């Protein structure tokens, strides 16, 4: 099989993966009971009381530093995969290269660790 031919099944998977839930939700809407609409039924759930305000407010994303670090590491991981695939053909020279590469990566991790990036930023030390 050619390279393009290999990916045709994936396209079919995407099509079916999109169609299947559509069909199921459609079937459900046909046989599902639609009872009379009551206003309370369409309220957002908040433990049975009337919701206070919207959930779309300013939210403290406490792990944004993890996210930044993740981007750095994820990009560098991509470089390790080609190395792993051709590893046997290149041999010892590539291993030394990759060990240096991982040392840089590990140094970055240690630096972030010491800087306190790997702590959950809850705005107080009460959790620890």
């Amino acid at each position, binding site marked *: *099989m050619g390279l393009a031919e*290999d*990916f*045709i*099944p*994936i396209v*079919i*998977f*995407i099509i*079916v*993966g*999109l169609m299947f*839930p559509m069909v*199921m*939700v459609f*079937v*459900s*809407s046909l*046989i*599902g*009971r*639609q*009872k009379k609409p009551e206003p309370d*039924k*369409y*309220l*957002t*759930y*908040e*433990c049975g009381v009337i*919701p206070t305000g*919207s*959930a*779309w407010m300013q*939210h403290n994303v406490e*792990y944004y530093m*993890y996210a930044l670090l*993740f981007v750095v*590491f*994820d990009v560098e*991981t991509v470089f*390790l*995969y080609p*190395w*792993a*695939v*051709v*590893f*046997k053909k290149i*041999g010892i020279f590539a*291993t030394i290269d*990759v*060990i240096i590469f991982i040392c840089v*990566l590990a140094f970055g*991790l240690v630096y972030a660790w010491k800087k306190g990036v*790997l*702590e*959950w930023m*809850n705005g107080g030390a009460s*959790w620890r």
Partner: protein
Amino acid sequence: MLENILYGASGVENGLIRGIVGVIATLLFVSLNVLFLIWLERKIIARIHVRYGPNRAGRYGMLQPIADMIKLLTKESIVPKDADKITYNTAPWVAFLFALLPAAAIGIATGLISTNISVGLLYIVAVSSLSTIAVIMAGWGSNNKYSLLGAMRTAAQSLSYEMPLVLSMIGIVAIVGSLNTQNIVAAQSHAWLGIIPKWFIFYQPLAFVVFFSAVVAEMGRIPFDLQESESELVAGFHTEYGGMKFAMFMFAEYTHLVVGSALVVTLFFGGWYLPVVSGIFANMGYINYIVQIAIFVAKMYVIIFILIWIRGTLTRTRINKMLSFGWKTLLPLALINIVITGVILSL
């Protein structure tokens, strides 16, 4: 007939036919497993808790998942009036799609794979990590505080555990020299002295520990099920969903379980090979296929049983402890594993 189907599926060169046969077979395989798993999980958890579990519908309550499915089908679909309609309604589709896609590159026997792409492993990782998007969509679209918190936690969780997951597989890729799942299983098909299998769990024990923990976290199961921790967030990101849309999330979650355990079996437990048994049936035509599928499914269920056992035994961790575990324990271990593997292989 059966022979034709089996050989047809494994030997067909035409991508279109292969895809259509593959997607039907995958959907059947996954849905049957999901239906069985819902019952199995409830039953095993119940026995661990010294309860009976479902025992009304059918023998041992085995028809309970089907009863549940019919119930969900006939439910009224309620969309909260404050929700973002487009995001709210499309999130279950996205969840289902990205749960199903990784199954395309996982085979259950020699040649029985929907698409034998050479970048199989990379494709699986890339696609399965996209399912976080569905969770974020559901959490934000619902306009519910619990959903939003659950979705935020999921994002943190999958960010942190994707690194160890991806890095722990590099050792295996280096040993095999290929990302193709068929090649990875074939590399584990031999045995020492004819009985001790050459599975990668013996070559890469450290990688297995890291990978298994990361898989549990990526699937969002106890002890890492913070995304839908019932006792604090109601149901997490799918609090506002009901009926068929809830069923789609449920289906996606159990598909993750099936695909995740299949991946563990493929990578670390020799896929469809058992030392003695595979040798006996090796030249027996379609019987060989059936034996291979049976071996694969049996191994898969051992992994699934362990996962359910963990769920019945452990408690939930706290979010900051969980993220620390991912970054401060698993990630360094995964990096050390790469260095060890590289050094040993080049000696």
